[in-house]
């Protein structure tokens, strides 16, 4: 495992760059634990100060320092993404493996549900739920909702692999020796699909964070919980661009791009590691 990581860092430039970008984000998040101000405290510093030695990323019109706002926002946003990715991974794995292995009518029914959910437009559904639930729409509820919408593509992908695993000799062998279905799925098939799970997780994380940022910018989330989208929402609410406070909008944008780029590069290079053909292409074969 460590050897693989070391090799990737050494020979794969995308992986190296992706790791560096993610390390920047993680360092930023680590800073949030040492913040001198509470996350919702306002007018603790002089408002509207441009970036300087004293205020690294400047201050906003609400009298908050943008660096500390950014670090807590990044933590909350990433947390949201991780929760969504984790829940939707569990659903995708269970649905994909069961559907692919059992097959037949069960598979047809599960896949019909899967495809129906996959065809639903996500943003309008979430907006509808936000309007209906209003104050009950806390971030865990939002995360759960997003997770319930975000597993369909990956469960199909896992199912396609499970379909081929089902006819492999080792599966027949396992069934013949008397292993139960659950044991076969968990012990024999799950390790096989782990690389796919690993790489789809990154894409799912990007999707979830994008969703959260979109909803927050529009103000459809808890505005008192600092997030990347929430920062941009507040900046818009104070007409930051008109007032010339460009750093208020630019900083969260730059950092969310860094996060996306890092995750994307990691997903891409891991994908390349998993697919032997692209590895061969890299070696010039």
């Amino acid at each position, binding site marked *: 495992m460590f050897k693989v990581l070391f090799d990737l860092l050494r020979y794969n430039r995308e992986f190296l760059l992706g790791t560096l970008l993610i390390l920047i984000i993680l360092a930023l998040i680590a800073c949030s634990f040492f913040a001198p101000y509470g996350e919702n405290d306002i007018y603790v510093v002089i408002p509207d100060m441009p970036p300087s030695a004293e205020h690294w990323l400047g201050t906003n019109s609400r009298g908050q320092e943008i660096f500390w706002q950014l670090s807590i926002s990044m933590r909350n946003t990433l947390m949201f993404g991780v929760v969504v990715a984790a829940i939707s991974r569990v659903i995708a794995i269970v649905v994909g493996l069961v559907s692919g292995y059992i097959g037949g009518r069960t598979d047809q029914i599960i896949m019909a549900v899967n495809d129906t959910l996959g065809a639903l437009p996500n943003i309008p559904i979430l907006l509808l739920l936000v309007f209906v639930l209003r104050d009950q729409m806390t971030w865990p509820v939002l995360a759960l909702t997003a997770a319930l919408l975000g597993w369909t593509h990956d469960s199909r992908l896992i199912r396609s692999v499970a379909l081929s695993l089902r006819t*492999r*000799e*080792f599966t*027949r*062998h*396992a*069934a*013949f*020796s*008397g*292993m139960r279905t659950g*044991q076969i799925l968990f*012990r*024999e098939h799950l*390790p*096989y699909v*782990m690389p796919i799970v690993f790489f789809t997780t990154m894409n799912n994380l990007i999707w979830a964070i994008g969703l959260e940022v979109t909803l927050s910018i529009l103000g459809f989330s808890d505005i008192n919980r600092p997030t990347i989208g929430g920062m941009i929402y507040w900046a818009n609410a104070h007409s930051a661009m008109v007032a010339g406070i460009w750093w208020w909008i630019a900083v969260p944008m730059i950092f969310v791009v860094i996060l996306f780029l890092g995750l994307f590069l990691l997903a891409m290079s891991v994908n390349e590691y998993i697919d032997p053909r692209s590895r061969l292409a890299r070696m010039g074969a």
Partner: protein
Amino acid sequence: MMNATLAPERPATTAPVDVLTIKDLKAYYINEHFGVRREVRAVDGIDLTVRRNEVYGIAGESSSGKTSLIKTLAGAIRPPMRVVEGSVKFDFGGKHIDVYGEPAKMQAARWQHLSYIMQGSMSVLNPVRRIKHAFNNFAYRHMGLDATAFRRRVESHLDRLGLDASVLEAFPHQLSGGMRQRVTIALATVCEPEFIIADEPTTALDVLVQQDVLGLIKEVQGRLGSSVVFVTHDMSVHAAITDRLAIMYAGRLAEEGPTQALFDRPQHPYTAHLIASLPRIGDVSTRKSLAGKPPSLANPPSGCRFHPRCPIAIERCSKEVPQMLPSATGGRVACFRAGEVSMQ
């Protein structure tokens, strides 16, 4: 010390005991699409017995129903295949099991009394898991041992099969084809089963490794006193390993008998042709091949299924189905003109 944990070797009995008895077994693949019913009669009326402590060979062309037959007798069939008629009964040292009468009992007997060496050693082992997991998953619960005793038992078993205990920590891709096949044999025999089914275990191997694997199967079989059903289309492998041999053609048995007698004096014209197709050292004449193709099992010919390709077929062959009757060489044969074919 090591041997104290091992079960005592089974005493070799003098009287032949039938471990497996198959009576008039019919298993068809039945498909129904848009109201049209299609039957593929892969196993169509087979009677046979396998004795204790013997290697019983099943030979035949591709699509002659060999694999369907052994799947059926192992109780490992899935829809659309179904047993239409007949019975499969095992006798594991006084423990009687009717495969299609008591499926639950069969499930419990698998691996412990009945194991399977499958075709294609490459894919029998899960490529992403270490070998030890295969032993733990397949054999552990059948042995009734605690983890350390089980591990010791597996290691001593591997040792007797000429494998180092370190293979347990290896992934399948780290082993050679021959080693992998040895591991599968070890996996199938670790519970010391009375009955072993070997489905073309040597097909993907080169001749030297093949020799090695055959020797190993024979050796394990001799030590355990088990019965082995050995399936392959390779007649030379049958000549090397089996005690008795059955020839399958289009879902039915054509001939059965002691291997040596079958090779010396084949009674069925199909057997005679199979044997004539084998190359022999020093013989430079061109090998004769049989005209035609194996019949479709969905729509088999009437009467004797071999009659369209048979060089000595008479009119009766296309009308009546020949029964398996005792032959002149101590076996059984299903042919109206048994013994009348001459190859040379």
